[in-house]
């Protein structure tokens, strides 16, 4: 008997395992009635709230004289201060597309949205995935190292950091594996033809960032790579127990690291000679404060076990936290990543939430948007590009939102 017939027979044998229930439709009717009444009650409550809100707000229109607070931008960063925004889009981001890519990190440039996926089998190559923003489809998959951990995009290239197979811990047996092969290396890929242009060995490759004229890698030390030569040109140690995340912008290289004392140490480096010019200490629950730059500032995620998680905004001139923006529903689960673009700062959380923060008011816009399947999956990274924000979700998709 063919396998098709075997399957048909098996299904037919078991079709009588389940029997129709005589009162089933009656149960459905009752549930529909309950659902109908519940929706009416919700609509009634919303209408009542809207009427009450209008009654409170209408008399105040025309009496407001002070504009919303705007953080002034440091003049010496060379960047113009953002104009006070009066036309910020306060509508919630809407899902435009779901692309089936199980990404752990994202980047964007003029060519595409780029994602890295880790290999499903240990020892096999990971993948750099190229997503066409015009069609929301994967248009290429490029094999990279056995443990890709982070990526960064410049105008013409994508840079993938390949960590060691056994993890990024110093106890990992680095000596047992070639540093210039598929592990502990940075691969440069041509963004137009997707070919590997260079493989640059570094020790214990971790996070990677591009900006301020170079590519930066967090390994056993900080590495500065010159894109003109594809060579490491400077090395330096990071404060605390070594850097976890990197960002380059607002005139500096920024690192986050742990001191082992429930705080994130933000290291501020001069990108010219990679000297440490300042540190900022932020109380936090764990060591995974992500960092990004945007609107003339650095933005660091902080997680607290006693209060809500938040974004700390750091002024590069005073090297102080100028404002801490609480993201209420993030506690005590924690934020995973922060990025900036499209006029906003975006943060993702372990519970799959995406927050949008207005940098002109330093306030979250609307409530968080839930990304991914329910119950919530974590959202490890987000990036902006092509008029959208793109979020990697552990549900196995990259979500594109307006």
């Amino acid at each position: 008997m063919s396998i098709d017939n075997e399957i048909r027979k098996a299904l037919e044998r078991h079709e009588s395992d389940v029997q129709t229930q005589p009162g089933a439709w009656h149960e459905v009717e009752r549930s529909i009635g309950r659902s109908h009444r519940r929706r009416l009650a919700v609509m009634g409550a919303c209408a009542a709230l809207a009427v009450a809100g209008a009654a409170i707000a209408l008399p105040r229109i025309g009496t407001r004289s002070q504009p919303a607070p705007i953080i002034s931008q440091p003049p010496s960063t060379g960047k113009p201060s953002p104009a006070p925004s009066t036309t910020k889009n306060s509508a919630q981001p809407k899902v435009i597309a779901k692309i089936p890519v199980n990404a752990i990190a994202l980047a964007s440039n003029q060519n595409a949205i780029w994602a890295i996926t880790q290999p499903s089998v240990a020892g096999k190559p990971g993948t750099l995935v190229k997503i066409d923003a015009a069609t929301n489809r994967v248009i290429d998959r490029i094999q990279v190292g056995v443990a890709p951990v982070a990526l960064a995009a410049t105008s013409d290239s994508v840079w993938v950091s390949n960590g060691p197979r056994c993890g990024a811990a110093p106890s990992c047996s680095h000596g047992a594996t070639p540093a210039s092969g598929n592990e502990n290396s940075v691969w440069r890929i041509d963004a137009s033809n997707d070919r590997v242009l260079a493989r640059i060995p570094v020790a214990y490759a971790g996070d990677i960032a591009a900006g301020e004229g170079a590519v930066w890698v967090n390994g056993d030390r900080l590495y500065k790579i010159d894109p003109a030569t594809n060579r490491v040109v400077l090395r330096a140690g990071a404060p605390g127990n070594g850097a976890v995340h990197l960002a380059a912008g607002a005139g500096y290289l920024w690192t986050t690291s742990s001191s082992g004392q429930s705080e994130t140490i933000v290291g501020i480096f001069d990108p010219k000679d990679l000297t440490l010019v300042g540190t900022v200490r932020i109380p936090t629950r764990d060591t995974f404060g992500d960092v990004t730059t945007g609107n003339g500032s650095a933005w660091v995620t902080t997680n607290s076990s006693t209060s809500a998680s938040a974004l700390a905004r750091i002024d590069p001139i005073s090297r102080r936290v100028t404002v801490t923006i609480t993201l209420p529903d993030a506690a005590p689960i924690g934020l995973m990543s922060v990025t900036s673009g499209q006029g906003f700062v975006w943060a993702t959380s372990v519970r799959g939430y995406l927050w949008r923060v207005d940098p002109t008011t330093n306030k979250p816009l609307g409530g968080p948007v839930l990304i991914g399947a329910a119950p919530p999956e974590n959202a490890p990274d987000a990036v902006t590009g092509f008029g959208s924000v793109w979020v990697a979700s552990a549900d196995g998709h990259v979500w594109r939102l307006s």
Partner: protein
Amino acid sequence: MSDTVATLTERAIGVFEPPQSRLDHLGAWFEAEYEPLLRFAYFLTGNASAAEDLVHDTFVRLYRAERRIEESGFRAYARRTMVNLHRSRFRRIMAERRAMAASHEPSSRQTDEPQDHIWQAIRGLPRGQRAVVALRFYEELSEQEIASALGVSIGTVKKQMNRAMSSLRVALEERSES
């Protein structure tokens, strides 16, 4: 005057009940499709109690979407709704809990019959592949119809079917070896 008040009161109360015409319309669909949908739900969940819950919830959902159903056809829309509901992890967890509570029910029979090897293999397939197998071999739908019913591309259907058939072939080979 009192008649007018009575009429108005009746109308006010009627607002809190779903429109009878929509219920009748859905009831007709229920009568025609309940049994095949229940069997499909059973092949999808592998458990009779979970299948009954899934069909129940599917019809509650279909009531809200009645206008959309007119356009795309009830059978395809109902199956797609069912698959989407089942896809929800919450639904799966709840169904598993109910299945554990109802572990003595006769419908989830476990037999030692050799031909049940393939049934066990079907139940062990990932839910997407199980849905494709049930639609193909029980409901005898074409790939195009399966794609429409599940709201996926034909390529996805082919891929799911290939994977399912590979798994089931392995199960059959293991049975013949043993």
